[in-house]
């Protein structure tokens, strides 16, 4: 187990180089920038597997436990791989009173999985997220950076189909 965590050979070398360059570019106390480094790492790799966390820890001269503590504290960081498209259903109050739970269950039904899992085709991950501040459009869901407002459960079918068809076309 420990060997596996220490093993960074599975990580993409080019991406690691980019991460190194980012860390080098940071000014002042580098340890203070841990959260920014993790943001960068997640952007590059998509998620933060444990060997990557340890890599970051070594690079910043921190303990692995400290880094893992931070990763698990903040909901923005993923320790597991995520799909190509992250579907985030807003669970803020405004969305909740307008039926966001029904939107979420329709999304889960259509993608055939549980929250925070990755779908079999590797396309989707579904999350319920904290208020994204688009309450005027409640209920809201986002797919990567695209915001969908006033979503009805039946609209979800079209939206998911749209992304699946993009994939099929690109194949």
């Amino acid at each position, binding site marked *: 187990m420990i060997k596996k965590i220490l093993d960074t050979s599975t990580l993409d070398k080019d991406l690691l180089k980019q991460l190194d360059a980012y860390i080098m570019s940071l000014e002042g106390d580098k340890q203070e920038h841990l959260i920014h480094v993790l943001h960068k790492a997640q952007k590059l790799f998509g998620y933060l597997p444990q060997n990557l966390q340890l890599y970051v820890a070594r690079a910043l001269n921190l303990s692995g436990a400290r880094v893992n503590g931070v990763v698990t504290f*903040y909901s923005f960081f993923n320790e597991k791989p995520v799909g190509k498209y992250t579907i985030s259903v807003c669970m803020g*109050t405004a969305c909740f009173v307008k039926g966001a739970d029904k939107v979420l269950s329709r999304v889960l039904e259509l993608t055939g999985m549980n929250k925070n899992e990755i779908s079999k085709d590797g396309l989707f991950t579904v999350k319920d997220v904290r208020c994204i501040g688009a309450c*005027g*459009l409640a209920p809201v869901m986002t797919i990567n950076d695209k915001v969908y407002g006033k979503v009805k459960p039946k609209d979800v079918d079209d939206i998911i189909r749209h992304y699946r068809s993009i994939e099929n076309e690109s194949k």
Partner: protein
Amino acid sequence: MRVNNYSDLLAWKKRCPRKIDYQINVLICNGTSCMSSDSELIIKIFEKELKNRNLEAEIRAIKTGCFGFCGQGPIIKIEPDDVTYVQVKVEDIQEIVESHLINHEVVVRLLYQEPNQKDLVEKSSGMNFYKKQMRIALRNCGEIDPENIEDYIVNDGYFALAKVLQEYTPEQVIDIVNKSGLRGRGGGGFPTGLKWSLTRKQKANEKYVICNADEGDPGAFMDRSIMEGDPHSILEAMAIAGYAIGASEGLVYIRAEYGVATRRLKKAIEDAKQSGLIGKNIFGSDFSFNIEIKLGAGAFVCGEETALIRSMEGFRGEPDKKPPFPSEHGFRDKPSSVNNVETFANIPAIILNGAQWFSSIGTERSKGTKVFALAGQIRNNGLVEVPMGTTFREIVYDIGGGHPQGKEIKAIQIGGPSGGVITKDFFDMKIDYDSLISMGAMMGSGGMIIMDEDSDMVQIAKFYLDFTQDESCGKCTPCRIGTKRMYEILERLVNMQGTPEDLERLRILGENIKNTSLCGLGQTAPNPVLSTMKYFREEYEAYAYRTKKTTYSIDAKKCIGCTKCSRSCPVSCIEGTVRQPHYIDESKCIACGACYDACPVDAIIRP
């Protein structure tokens, strides 16, 4: 353009393009809400149209921040005609350009229509939504291009900073803020001037100005809109705060979820640095000030100032006990003043217009205006800014337009997961910090969720508690375990497995958590439960005594016998013949709500 002194700024302002230099200005909302409805594309097409028709010299398309009228987006406003178009689609642009911009004929079908009124509103100033508003913090939102520093300068941007550096000592600045009566807009309402003077008094070689932009209350989005619509006002105010407390560095701690706001802030910082409005020896004075952005990573507790500081230092965002306050030992253990985005947005206006002007607005102990985010069961979703002391009724009915289907509004939840409910008996109460506390609610950041007669208050309370117990950082026991136990009791109640004793248990536990938690999150987490229990006790009792009706039924008087409900029912428990009233076999009903959604005449009665 590089500004080295006051006259440079004045000269720059004179050269900046003004709205009156153009015959027509087309203001297009580019806030997050409207962007999701293609407002970015609308802007691009507008610009292309103007170019193709050679109108660029006479007409300017400005992509602005939020107008506040989010429920009707995307919004386009035409000045100086003062016409607002709502729910504009890409295919409407051609008509707006040809009819309004060229032939000066208003496109009537895109105007806003007030509820229950036949006439369309042609002048924006005539819209009920704007009539009772007074915009100080949002003064530039929806007016200027947030990514263009010249738009800010032409509206007296950075003149407050210039005035402060030229005319006032740091003590005088603090005195002005003190006399204005400005209190923190992020929740607690701590006097801003006092916070600054406490930080100023500390002796240290380095101090920090921190902008709390970790807007986490579900249902509140005023800070996001200000950062997206008027980022320079925050930077200017932070520099003023830096001068006042003796800091040379400012940090904005912003939620990672706010992508657009972060991007615009970054651009604003770059532009301000390039112009010398931030950086070394601002306006040729001895004062130097730098601003950086720190990203959050999704933790509600980081809105609490000590947790926020821990997070900025690269740790888990766990709060510390106070005292010592951040004004003594803050970021990097140095004295730090942590102020909220909306608080900062008021500062330049206070400096330019004077403390007396600001303190003449509002109530005795709450001065100025407050931005509220209206959401939930209300016609006009969006952001409104009103003087303190405005009543709930004015906000919900006059500005908000009441319930979208005209149903009765039962309560308003204010202050998010830390706040409580205001029932309809209190809608005429004047809103300020103290009146809300006396109601067992709190201002919080100003999110108002409107709930109608169909809303189940126990479920709402459970929703908030689910949120807080999930967001509890786990450092102190009352919050970590207490909120979990409270949640379990609530869950038991709504599953009809509770007992009447559970209500008392819930209350005592709630009081204990309030009294013994370490930080603001725990100390206010029970509020939504305690407040709904106080005002809607009968709803709790219905669950506790297990008399709550949990199945749907049909109002035979309203039913037209269209059979839509029976066709939609997944367990086939609705019977009846065509054109005759239907009925639900309540022993089989699973309360899925499919019939409710299917009914065209509102004849289904919800539990």
